[in-house]
């Protein structure tokens, strides 16, 4: 796994600000998710709609989220039990960062980050006061896309 990531980083040609971040996301996510998926309760997802198309992917995610939010559903219960273990892992912060990057693919969420960024001075240093990965992920993604 580590070798795979190192190899990926080495071959990622040290991405520049103008690079296609989405491509990089895809490469990194593919490398990382292989490990994560090993322990995900995938058997409970058999009833989820297939997600091959873009529309299908959306329906599948909505189905999963409905299950996750319902703490009495089999998946909801499994998620609670699973996350109780996950949050004890040393690298759960990585999960946190990575999952928040989902919002970088939401145009409406990005609009919030654009609004924040456009209200800040274009020049000079900006102090980020504990905003955390929710802001930082989308904010950085926006910066990287607009800076090139």
């Amino acid at each position, binding site marked *: 796994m580590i070798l795979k990531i190192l190899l990926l980083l080495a071959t990622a040609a*040290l*991405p520049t*600000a103008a690079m296609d*971040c989405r491509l*990089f*996301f895809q490469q990194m*996510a593919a490398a990382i*998710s292989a490990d*994560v998926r090993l322990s*995900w309760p995938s058997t409970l997802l058999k009833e989820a709609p297939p*997600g091959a198309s*873009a529309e299908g992917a*959306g329906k599948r*995610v*909505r189905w*999963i*989220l409905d299950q*996750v*939010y319902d*703490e009495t559903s089999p998946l909801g219960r499994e*998620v609670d039990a699973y*996350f109780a273990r*996950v949050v004890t892992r040393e690298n759960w912060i*990585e999960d*946190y*960062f*990575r*999952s928040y*990057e*989902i*919002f*970088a*693919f*939401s*145009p*409406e*969420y990005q609009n*919030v980050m654009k609004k*924040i960024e456009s*209200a*800040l*001075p274009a*020049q000079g*240093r*900006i*102090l*980020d*006061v*504990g*905003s*955390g*990965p929710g*802001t*930082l992920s989308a*904010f*950085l*993604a926006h*910066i*990287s896309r607009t*800076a090139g």
Partner: protein
Amino acid sequence: MTLFDNRGAMPIAQSRLTTTTGSPHETVPFFLNPVRPLPAYNADGAVMNHVFYTLSKTTRMPTLRGLLSSLKPGGTLVLNEPNRESAALPGKFREWLTDRMVEAAENGSPHNEFDFAFLAAMSSGRLTRDARSTDLAARYPSRAELELMAREAGFEVVERGSTYGGFSTFLVLRKPK
């Protein structure tokens, strides 16, 4: 590691952003890293997004005053906070977040099902607090209260609005010259 390692955005961020933890790499969730007393950064701008409500009520005004002192005269603070009005509609906010995640999936997000579930659980507070015992309405300042606190701390209000589907109060504040 995070997806931001070695990414083009990081050098840009490091040249523009200073975080309270010292590095964008080290930014950690607020619940693990309560905001420390702020040194005088002499910053041109500052951003605080969905953080203020996590502070205890006794530390809110000192934090705002600390932010004021950390800015240059004329510096800008962007404050974006969930408002009390939204606390009455937790289901609506969850719907809004769900729509954003569905939108991301349809838009080619490469994240896997674990990531979506993790984000949903995180956003709904199940991983960070016991939502059932947390009185969010008491923790979220109303739009009027947030603006009043900002004025009392010494900021001028330049712009007011809302974000996150109307669930957050958006204030652009300025340190007087």
